[in-house]
Protein backbone atom coordinates (compact mmCIF):
# COMPACT_ATOMS: atom_id res chain seq x y z
CA UNK A 1 0.00 0.00 0.00
CA UNK A 2 2.64 2.48 1.04
CA UNK A 3 5.23 3.19 -1.57
CA UNK A 4 8.77 3.92 -0.61
CA UNK A 5 10.25 7.26 -1.49
CA UNK A 6 13.85 8.21 -1.55
CA UNK A 7 14.04 9.84 1.82
CA UNK A 8 15.68 8.35 4.83
CA UNK A 9 12.32 7.16 6.08
CA UNK A 10 9.40 5.59 4.29
CA UNK A 11 6.68 8.11 3.79
CA UNK A 12 3.30 6.42 3.63
CA UNK A 13 1.19 7.44 0.68
CA UNK A 14 -2.43 6.64 0.20
CA UNK A 15 -3.08 4.38 -2.78
CA UNK A 16 -5.43 6.38 -4.94
CA UNK A 17 -6.85 6.29 -8.40
CA UNK A 18 -6.67 9.59 -10.22
CA UNK A 19 -9.79 10.92 -11.88
CA UNK A 20 -10.60 14.08 -13.78
CA UNK A 21 -13.61 16.34 -13.69
CA UNK A 22 -15.05 14.73 -16.81
CA UNK A 23 -14.82 11.10 -15.86
CA UNK A 24 -15.58 11.49 -12.16
CA UNK A 25 -19.26 10.76 -12.47
CA UNK A 26 -18.63 7.75 -14.69
CA UNK A 27 -16.18 6.36 -12.16
CA UNK A 28 -18.60 6.95 -9.32
CA UNK A 29 -21.33 5.15 -11.22
CA UNK A 30 -19.00 2.26 -11.91
CA UNK A 31 -18.06 1.95 -8.25
CA UNK A 32 -21.68 2.16 -7.23
CA UNK A 33 -22.65 -0.60 -9.63
CA UNK A 34 -19.83 -2.73 -8.28
CA UNK A 35 -21.39 -2.46 -4.84
CA UNK A 36 -19.16 0.14 -3.27
CA UNK A 37 -20.65 2.65 -0.90
CA UNK A 38 -19.46 6.14 -0.24
CA UNK A 39 -17.60 6.68 2.99
CA UNK A 40 -16.77 10.32 2.58
CA UNK A 41 -15.12 13.08 0.63
CA UNK A 42 -11.98 14.75 1.87
CA UNK A 43 -10.79 18.07 0.66
CA UNK A 44 -7.10 18.87 1.07
CA UNK A 45 -5.76 22.31 0.46
CA UNK A 46 -2.75 22.06 -1.88
CA UNK A 47 -1.75 25.54 -2.90
CA UNK A 48 -3.27 28.84 -3.90
CA UNK A 49 -4.96 27.41 -6.92
CA UNK A 50 -5.83 23.82 -6.19
CA UNK A 51 -7.33 21.41 -3.77
CA UNK A 52 -7.38 17.65 -3.79
CA UNK A 53 -10.74 15.99 -3.52
CA UNK A 54 -10.50 12.46 -2.20
CA UNK A 55 -13.49 10.20 -2.68
CA UNK A 56 -13.35 7.25 -0.31
CA UNK A 57 -15.41 4.16 -1.00
CA UNK A 58 -15.86 0.97 0.86
CA UNK A 59 -16.96 -2.55 0.08
CA UNK A 60 -16.83 -5.22 2.76
CA UNK A 61 -14.34 -3.13 4.71
CA UNK A 62 -11.98 -2.75 1.74
CA UNK A 63 -11.42 0.86 0.78
CA UNK A 64 -10.89 2.49 -2.59
CA UNK A 65 -9.93 6.12 -2.93
CA UNK A 66 -10.36 8.38 -5.94
CA UNK A 67 -8.27 11.52 -6.14
CA UNK A 68 -9.27 14.51 -8.18
CA UNK A 69 -7.32 17.70 -8.38
CA UNK A 70 -9.68 20.58 -8.48
CA UNK A 71 -8.95 24.22 -9.27
CA UNK A 72 -10.49 26.44 -6.61
CA UNK A 73 -11.95 28.87 -9.09
CA UNK A 74 -14.10 26.42 -11.02
CA UNK A 75 -17.01 24.47 -9.64
CA UNK A 76 -16.60 20.76 -9.12
CA UNK A 77 -19.23 18.33 -10.32
CA UNK A 78 -21.51 17.22 -7.52
CA UNK A 79 -22.08 13.53 -7.06
CA UNK A 80 -25.06 14.02 -4.80
CA UNK A 81 -27.41 13.21 -7.65
CA UNK A 82 -25.87 9.74 -7.85
CA UNK A 83 -25.23 9.27 -4.14
CA UNK A 84 -27.63 11.36 -2.09
CA UNK A 85 -25.48 10.79 0.96
CA UNK A 86 -22.80 13.05 -0.49
CA UNK A 87 -24.83 16.23 -0.20
CA UNK A 88 -23.83 16.92 3.36
CA UNK A 89 -20.11 16.57 2.85
CA UNK A 90 -20.17 18.58 -0.34
CA UNK A 91 -21.94 21.36 1.49
CA UNK A 92 -19.33 21.12 4.20
CA UNK A 93 -16.52 21.52 1.66
CA UNK A 94 -18.32 24.50 0.20
CA UNK A 95 -18.35 26.04 3.63
CA UNK A 96 -14.80 25.33 4.55
CA UNK A 97 -12.92 25.68 1.29
CA UNK A 98 -15.13 27.83 -0.85
CA UNK A 99 -15.26 25.25 -3.62
CA UNK A 100 -18.56 25.26 -5.41
CA UNK A 101 -20.34 22.11 -6.44
CA UNK A 102 -22.45 21.98 -9.53
CA UNK A 103 -25.84 20.37 -9.17
CA UNK A 104 -26.03 19.87 -5.41
CA UNK A 105 -29.43 18.41 -4.57
CA UNK A 106 -29.77 20.34 -1.33
CA UNK A 107 -27.57 23.39 -1.45
CA UNK A 108 -26.98 25.33 1.74
CA UNK A 109 -25.02 27.89 -0.29
CA UNK A 110 -21.96 28.16 1.94
CA UNK A 111 -24.02 28.56 5.06
CA UNK A 112 -24.29 25.02 6.30
CA UNK A 113 -22.24 25.73 9.39
CA UNK A 114 -21.24 29.34 9.16
CA UNK A 115 -22.99 32.60 9.75
CA UNK A 116 -22.41 35.80 7.85
CA UNK A 117 -19.84 37.04 10.36
CA UNK A 118 -17.42 34.23 9.65
CA UNK A 119 -18.49 33.21 6.18
CA UNK A 120 -15.05 33.17 4.71
CA UNK A 121 -13.10 30.07 3.83
CA UNK A 122 -11.72 29.14 7.20
CA UNK A 123 -10.04 25.94 6.15
CA UNK A 124 -7.94 27.31 3.33
CA UNK A 125 -4.40 28.09 4.21
CA UNK A 126 -4.30 30.33 1.20
CA UNK A 127 -7.23 32.66 1.20
CA UNK A 128 -9.48 32.73 -1.78
CA UNK A 129 -12.39 34.94 -2.60
CA UNK A 130 -15.59 33.11 -1.92
CA UNK A 131 -18.00 33.00 -4.78
CA UNK A 132 -21.63 32.59 -4.15
CA UNK A 133 -22.79 29.28 -5.43
CA UNK A 134 -25.49 29.34 -8.00
Amino acid at each position, binding site marked *: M*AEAKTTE*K*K*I*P*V*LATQAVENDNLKAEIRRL*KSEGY*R*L*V*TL*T*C*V*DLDEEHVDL*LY*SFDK*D*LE*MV*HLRMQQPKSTPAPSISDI*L*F*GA*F*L*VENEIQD*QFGICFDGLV*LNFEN*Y*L*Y*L*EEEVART*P*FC*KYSVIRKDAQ
Partner: protein
Amino acid sequence: MAKTIIPFGPQHPVLPEPIHLSLTVEDEIVTQAVPALGYVHRGLEKLCDIRDYHHMIQVVERVCGICSKIHAMCYCHGLEEMMQVEVPPRAKYLRTIWSELHRVHSHLLWLGLFADGFGFEALFYQLWKIRERVMDINEATTGNRVIVSVNVMGGVRKDLSLEQIRWILSELELVESELKALESTILDDYTVKERTVGKGMLTKEQAYDLGAAGPTLRGSGIAQDCRQLNYAAFSDLEFEPVVEYDGDSYARSKVRYRETLQSIDLVRQALHKLPDGEINVKVKGNPEGEGVARVEQPRGELFYYFKGNGTKHLERLRIRTPTFANIPPLAAMLPGIELADVPVVVLSIDPCISCTER
Protein backbone atom coordinates in the same frame (compact mmCIF):
# COMPACT_ATOMS: atom_id res chain seq x y z
CA MET B 1 -54.58 22.14 2.94
CA ALA B 2 -52.99 24.44 5.46
CA LYS B 3 -49.73 23.33 6.96
CA THR B 4 -48.10 23.64 10.30
CA ILE B 5 -44.44 24.59 10.19
CA ILE B 6 -42.48 23.94 13.34
CA PRO B 7 -38.95 24.90 14.23
CA PHE B 8 -37.78 21.74 15.97
CA GLY B 9 -34.67 22.78 17.83
CA PRO B 10 -31.96 24.09 18.22
CA GLN B 11 -33.07 24.26 21.84
CA HIS B 12 -35.52 21.47 22.40
CA PRO B 13 -35.92 19.38 25.52
CA VAL B 14 -36.20 16.12 23.68
CA LEU B 15 -33.06 16.61 21.64
CA PRO B 16 -30.10 16.89 23.95
CA GLU B 17 -28.13 18.58 21.24
CA PRO B 18 -28.73 21.62 19.09
CA ILE B 19 -29.90 20.46 15.72
CA HIS B 20 -32.61 22.27 13.91
CA LEU B 21 -35.30 20.65 11.85
CA SER B 22 -37.83 22.68 9.97
CA LEU B 23 -40.77 20.34 10.08
CA THR B 24 -43.86 20.71 7.98
CA VAL B 25 -46.69 18.68 9.40
CA GLU B 26 -50.28 18.02 8.48
CA ASP B 27 -52.40 16.51 11.21
CA GLU B 28 -49.12 15.65 12.88
CA ILE B 29 -47.83 13.74 9.89
CA VAL B 30 -44.47 15.07 8.79
CA THR B 31 -44.50 15.94 5.12
CA GLN B 32 -41.17 17.66 4.91
CA ALA B 33 -38.13 17.89 7.14
CA VAL B 34 -35.20 20.13 6.36
CA PRO B 35 -32.27 19.92 8.75
CA ALA B 36 -30.09 22.88 9.65
CA LEU B 37 -26.71 22.34 11.23
CA GLY B 38 -23.99 24.59 12.48
CA TYR B 39 -25.02 25.13 16.07
CA VAL B 40 -22.10 23.06 17.35
CA HIS B 41 -19.63 23.70 14.59
CA ARG B 42 -16.27 24.73 15.98
CA GLY B 43 -13.94 23.97 13.10
CA LEU B 44 -11.62 21.93 15.27
CA GLU B 45 -9.99 20.07 12.39
CA LYS B 46 -8.33 23.36 11.66
CA LEU B 47 -6.80 23.43 15.14
CA CYS B 48 -4.07 21.11 13.85
CA ASP B 49 -2.39 24.21 12.49
CA ILE B 50 -1.98 25.62 15.97
CA ARG B 51 -1.73 22.57 18.20
CA ASP B 52 0.92 19.95 17.60
CA TYR B 53 -0.03 16.38 16.93
CA HIS B 54 0.29 15.36 20.58
CA HIS B 55 -2.04 18.13 21.67
CA MET B 56 -4.48 17.08 19.02
CA ILE B 57 -5.20 13.90 20.96
CA GLN B 58 -6.88 16.01 23.61
CA VAL B 59 -8.67 18.01 20.95
CA VAL B 60 -10.07 15.02 19.06
CA GLU B 61 -11.16 13.49 22.36
CA ARG B 62 -13.43 16.48 22.66
CA VAL B 63 -14.96 16.00 19.24
CA CYS B 64 -17.50 14.03 21.16
CA GLY B 65 -17.64 13.58 24.87
CA ILE B 66 -19.53 10.33 24.75
CA CYS B 67 -17.06 8.35 22.68
CA SER B 68 -13.99 10.43 23.38
CA LYS B 69 -11.78 7.45 24.05
CA ILE B 70 -12.56 5.96 20.68
CA HIS B 71 -11.78 9.16 18.83
CA ALA B 72 -8.42 9.32 20.53
CA MET B 73 -7.81 5.66 19.79
CA CYS B 74 -8.60 6.13 16.12
CA TYR B 75 -6.36 9.16 15.94
CA CYS B 76 -3.45 7.43 17.65
CA HIS B 77 -3.99 4.23 15.72
CA GLY B 78 -3.87 6.07 12.40
CA LEU B 79 -0.83 8.15 13.22
CA GLU B 80 0.99 5.17 14.67
CA GLU B 81 0.42 3.27 11.45
CA MET B 82 1.69 6.23 9.46
CA MET B 83 4.77 6.57 11.61
CA GLN B 84 5.27 2.81 11.87
CA VAL B 85 5.16 2.70 15.64
CA GLU B 86 4.52 -0.68 17.20
CA VAL B 87 2.23 -0.38 20.20
CA PRO B 88 2.88 -2.82 23.03
CA PRO B 89 0.22 -5.56 23.33
CA ARG B 90 -0.85 -4.58 26.84
CA ALA B 91 -1.58 -1.09 25.62
CA LYS B 92 -3.65 -2.54 22.79
CA TYR B 93 -5.67 -4.53 25.26
CA LEU B 94 -6.14 -1.60 27.58
CA ARG B 95 -7.31 0.55 24.67
CA THR B 96 -9.79 -2.15 23.78
CA ILE B 97 -11.07 -2.37 27.34
CA TRP B 98 -11.67 1.34 27.69
CA SER B 99 -13.14 1.69 24.24
CA GLU B 100 -15.60 -1.12 24.93
CA LEU B 101 -16.45 0.43 28.29
CA HIS B 102 -17.21 3.60 26.39
CA ARG B 103 -19.46 1.65 24.08
CA VAL B 104 -21.31 0.23 27.07
CA HIS B 105 -21.87 3.62 28.64
CA SER B 106 -22.76 5.20 25.33
CA HIS B 107 -25.32 2.55 24.51
CA LEU B 108 -26.82 2.69 27.98
CA LEU B 109 -27.02 6.44 27.67
CA TRP B 110 -28.65 6.10 24.30
CA LEU B 111 -31.15 3.49 25.46
CA GLY B 112 -32.08 5.87 28.24
CA LEU B 113 -32.47 8.87 26.00
CA PHE B 114 -34.42 6.76 23.56
CA ALA B 115 -36.79 5.72 26.34
CA ASP B 116 -37.09 9.37 27.26
CA GLY B 117 -37.85 10.18 23.63
CA PHE B 118 -41.06 8.20 23.82
CA GLY B 119 -41.85 9.34 27.30
CA PHE B 120 -40.79 6.33 29.38
CA GLU B 121 -39.12 8.20 32.18
CA ALA B 122 -38.82 5.36 34.62
CA LEU B 123 -36.89 3.28 32.09
CA PHE B 124 -34.67 6.25 31.30
CA TYR B 125 -33.82 6.68 34.95
CA GLN B 126 -33.14 2.99 35.48
CA LEU B 127 -30.78 2.79 32.53
CA TRP B 128 -28.90 5.86 33.62
CA LYS B 129 -28.68 4.44 37.08
CA ILE B 130 -26.96 1.37 35.68
CA ARG B 131 -24.74 3.55 33.56
CA GLU B 132 -23.38 5.25 36.67
CA ARG B 133 -21.52 2.03 37.48
CA VAL B 134 -19.69 2.22 34.17
CA MET B 135 -18.91 5.85 34.81
CA ASP B 136 -17.48 4.86 38.18
CA ILE B 137 -15.23 2.33 36.48
CA ASN B 138 -14.07 5.05 34.13
CA GLU B 139 -13.35 7.45 36.92
CA ALA B 140 -11.65 4.90 39.13
CA THR B 141 -9.35 3.67 36.39
CA THR B 142 -8.61 6.81 34.44
CA GLY B 143 -9.35 9.72 36.73
CA ASN B 144 -12.21 11.20 34.80
CA ARG B 145 -15.75 10.11 34.21
CA VAL B 146 -16.39 11.19 30.68
CA ILE B 147 -13.33 12.40 28.84
CA VAL B 148 -10.87 9.88 30.07
CA SER B 149 -7.69 11.12 28.35
CA VAL B 150 -5.82 7.84 28.60
CA ASN B 151 -4.50 7.61 25.09
CA VAL B 152 -1.09 8.87 24.13
CA MET B 153 0.91 8.27 21.00
CA GLY B 154 2.43 4.85 21.35
CA GLY B 155 0.19 3.48 24.02
CA VAL B 156 -1.84 4.46 27.04
CA ARG B 157 -1.18 6.50 30.15
CA LYS B 158 -2.76 4.39 32.83
CA ASP B 159 -2.43 0.80 33.80
CA LEU B 160 -4.84 -1.49 35.54
CA SER B 161 -3.88 -3.24 38.72
CA LEU B 162 -5.05 -6.76 39.48
CA GLU B 163 -7.27 -5.45 42.19
CA GLN B 164 -8.89 -3.03 39.78
CA ILE B 165 -9.43 -5.81 37.25
CA ARG B 166 -11.21 -7.87 39.84
CA TRP B 167 -13.36 -4.91 40.84
CA ILE B 168 -14.21 -4.10 37.22
CA LEU B 169 -15.25 -7.70 36.64
CA SER B 170 -17.53 -7.68 39.64
CA GLU B 171 -19.04 -4.32 38.67
CA LEU B 172 -19.65 -5.60 35.15
CA GLU B 173 -21.49 -8.57 36.62
CA LEU B 174 -23.81 -6.12 38.32
CA VAL B 175 -24.23 -4.00 35.22
CA GLU B 176 -25.09 -7.08 33.21
CA SER B 177 -27.57 -8.47 35.70
CA GLU B 178 -29.27 -5.11 36.23
CA LEU B 179 -29.49 -4.59 32.50
CA LYS B 180 -30.93 -8.04 31.97
CA ALA B 181 -33.59 -7.25 34.52
CA LEU B 182 -34.73 -4.51 32.16
CA GLU B 183 -34.47 -6.67 29.07
CA SER B 184 -38.14 -7.55 28.90
CA THR B 185 -39.06 -3.87 29.19
CA ILE B 186 -36.71 -2.79 26.45
CA LEU B 187 -37.64 -5.58 24.08
CA ASP B 188 -41.13 -6.82 24.94
CA ASP B 189 -43.09 -4.01 26.55
CA TYR B 190 -46.35 -3.37 24.72
CA THR B 191 -46.17 0.40 24.84
CA VAL B 192 -42.49 0.45 23.89
CA LYS B 193 -43.10 -1.75 20.89
CA GLU B 194 -46.13 0.29 19.94
CA ARG B 195 -43.94 3.36 19.78
CA THR B 196 -40.92 1.87 18.01
CA VAL B 197 -41.91 -1.01 15.77
CA GLY B 198 -42.27 0.13 12.19
CA LYS B 199 -41.22 3.69 12.98
CA GLY B 200 -38.47 5.15 10.82
CA MET B 201 -38.15 2.38 8.28
CA LEU B 202 -34.85 2.10 6.46
CA THR B 203 -34.57 -0.77 4.03
CA LYS B 204 -31.36 -2.64 3.45
CA GLU B 205 -30.86 -1.02 0.04
CA GLN B 206 -31.57 2.47 1.35
CA ALA B 207 -29.21 2.02 4.24
CA TYR B 208 -26.45 0.86 1.93
CA ASP B 209 -26.93 3.50 -0.73
CA LEU B 210 -27.30 6.42 1.64
CA GLY B 211 -24.15 5.40 3.45
CA ALA B 212 -25.60 4.61 6.85
CA ALA B 213 -23.14 3.48 9.50
CA GLY B 214 -23.06 1.47 12.68
CA PRO B 215 -26.21 0.22 14.38
CA THR B 216 -28.31 2.09 11.82
CA LEU B 217 -26.71 -0.03 9.11
CA ARG B 218 -26.75 -3.22 11.15
CA GLY B 219 -30.38 -2.63 12.13
CA SER B 220 -31.19 -2.81 8.44
CA GLY B 221 -29.59 -6.18 8.00
CA ILE B 222 -26.04 -5.45 6.89
CA ALA B 223 -23.45 -7.08 9.09
CA GLN B 224 -20.63 -4.61 8.84
CA ASP B 225 -18.59 -3.78 11.88
CA CYS B 226 -15.22 -2.05 11.68
CA ARG B 227 -14.01 -4.04 14.65
CA GLN B 228 -13.61 -6.84 12.13
CA LEU B 229 -10.64 -4.84 10.83
CA ASN B 230 -8.82 -6.20 13.86
CA TYR B 231 -7.31 -3.01 15.15
CA ALA B 232 -6.20 -2.88 18.78
CA ALA B 233 -6.83 -6.26 20.38
CA PHE B 234 -9.90 -7.25 18.45
CA SER B 235 -7.99 -9.88 16.50
CA ASP B 236 -7.67 -11.91 19.70
CA LEU B 237 -11.25 -11.48 20.90
CA GLU B 238 -14.28 -13.39 19.83
CA PHE B 239 -17.29 -11.59 18.62
CA GLU B 240 -19.84 -11.53 15.84
CA PRO B 241 -21.37 -8.33 14.51
CA VAL B 242 -24.91 -7.89 15.83
CA VAL B 243 -27.47 -7.74 13.04
CA GLU B 244 -31.20 -7.17 12.96
CA TYR B 245 -33.21 -7.24 9.78
CA ASP B 246 -36.32 -5.09 10.29
CA GLY B 247 -34.75 -1.70 9.67
CA ASP B 248 -37.02 0.18 12.09
CA SER B 249 -36.34 2.00 15.32
CA TYR B 250 -37.09 -1.14 17.28
CA ALA B 251 -34.48 -3.10 15.33
CA ARG B 252 -31.91 -0.42 15.96
CA SER B 253 -32.63 -0.37 19.66
CA LYS B 254 -32.37 -4.15 19.69
CA VAL B 255 -28.98 -3.95 17.99
CA ARG B 256 -27.75 -1.50 20.59
CA TYR B 257 -29.11 -3.52 23.46
CA ARG B 258 -27.41 -6.67 22.22
CA GLU B 259 -24.21 -4.78 21.52
CA THR B 260 -24.15 -3.55 25.09
CA LEU B 261 -24.11 -7.12 26.34
CA GLN B 262 -21.57 -8.01 23.66
CA SER B 263 -19.27 -5.19 24.74
CA ILE B 264 -19.50 -6.24 28.36
CA ASP B 265 -18.43 -9.68 27.20
CA LEU B 266 -15.57 -8.23 25.15
CA VAL B 267 -14.29 -6.28 28.15
CA ARG B 268 -14.42 -9.42 30.16
CA GLN B 269 -12.53 -11.40 27.51
CA ALA B 270 -9.91 -8.69 27.23
CA LEU B 271 -9.47 -8.49 30.98
CA HIS B 272 -8.97 -12.23 31.16
CA LYS B 273 -6.46 -12.25 28.33
CA LEU B 274 -4.67 -9.07 29.35
CA PRO B 275 -0.94 -9.64 28.61
CA ASP B 276 1.84 -8.26 30.74
CA GLY B 277 4.34 -5.72 29.58
CA GLU B 278 4.85 -2.08 28.81
CA ILE B 279 1.91 0.21 28.37
CA ASN B 280 3.50 2.69 25.99
CA VAL B 281 6.49 3.38 23.80
CA LYS B 282 8.06 6.69 23.13
CA VAL B 283 7.16 8.15 19.77
CA LYS B 284 9.81 10.14 17.99
CA GLY B 285 9.70 12.24 14.87
CA ASN B 286 6.87 13.92 13.14
CA PRO B 287 4.20 12.49 10.92
CA GLU B 288 4.70 12.72 7.21
CA GLY B 289 2.70 11.46 4.28
CA GLU B 290 -0.92 10.41 4.13
CA GLY B 291 -2.93 7.82 5.94
CA VAL B 292 -6.40 6.81 6.96
CA ALA B 293 -7.81 5.03 9.99
CA ARG B 294 -11.16 3.47 10.69
CA VAL B 295 -12.54 2.20 13.96
CA GLU B 296 -15.98 1.32 15.18
CA GLN B 297 -17.57 3.96 17.40
CA PRO B 298 -20.73 3.24 19.38
CA ARG B 299 -22.54 5.11 16.61
CA GLY B 300 -20.74 3.40 13.77
CA GLU B 301 -17.73 3.65 11.61
CA LEU B 302 -15.30 6.45 12.36
CA PHE B 303 -12.94 7.52 9.60
CA TYR B 304 -9.85 9.66 9.99
CA TYR B 305 -7.66 11.03 7.25
CA PHE B 306 -4.22 12.42 8.07
CA LYS B 307 -1.79 14.34 6.02
CA GLY B 308 1.53 15.22 7.59
CA ASN B 309 4.28 17.36 6.26
CA GLY B 310 7.14 16.43 8.50
CA THR B 311 6.52 19.14 11.05
CA LYS B 312 4.87 18.62 14.39
CA HIS B 313 1.69 20.17 13.02
CA LEU B 314 -0.42 18.02 10.80
CA GLU B 315 -1.23 19.56 7.47
CA ARG B 316 -4.73 18.20 7.26
CA LEU B 317 -6.85 16.21 9.61
CA ARG B 318 -10.22 15.05 8.44
CA ILE B 319 -12.74 13.36 10.68
CA ARG B 320 -15.78 11.66 9.27
CA THR B 321 -18.00 10.66 12.10
CA PRO B 322 -20.77 8.07 11.94
CA THR B 323 -23.57 10.53 12.60
CA PHE B 324 -22.38 12.57 9.67
CA ALA B 325 -23.01 9.50 7.55
CA ASN B 326 -26.33 8.85 9.22
CA ILE B 327 -27.86 12.27 8.57
CA PRO B 328 -28.84 11.51 4.94
CA PRO B 329 -30.63 8.29 5.98
CA LEU B 330 -32.36 10.29 8.71
CA ALA B 331 -33.54 12.85 6.17
CA ALA B 332 -34.96 9.94 4.21
CA MET B 333 -36.69 8.44 7.24
CA LEU B 334 -38.49 11.53 8.52
CA PRO B 335 -41.17 12.27 5.92
CA GLY B 336 -44.35 10.35 6.52
CA ILE B 337 -43.96 9.72 10.23
CA GLU B 338 -45.97 11.27 13.02
CA LEU B 339 -44.73 14.32 14.86
CA ALA B 340 -44.73 12.28 18.05
CA ASP B 341 -42.33 9.85 16.42
CA VAL B 342 -39.87 12.49 15.29
CA PRO B 343 -37.84 12.29 18.50
CA VAL B 344 -37.94 8.51 18.39
CA VAL B 345 -36.70 8.37 14.82
CA VAL B 346 -34.14 11.13 15.25
CA LEU B 347 -32.80 9.42 18.34
CA SER B 348 -32.83 6.03 16.66
CA ILE B 349 -29.71 6.92 14.67
CA ASP B 350 -28.12 7.95 17.98
CA PRO B 351 -27.27 11.39 16.68
CA CYS B 352 -24.11 13.00 17.91
CA ILE B 353 -24.28 16.44 16.42
CA SER B 354 -21.09 17.50 18.05
CA CYS B 355 -19.37 14.71 16.10
CA THR B 356 -21.15 15.65 12.92
CA GLU B 357 -20.17 19.28 12.92
CA ARG B 358 -16.90 19.08 14.81
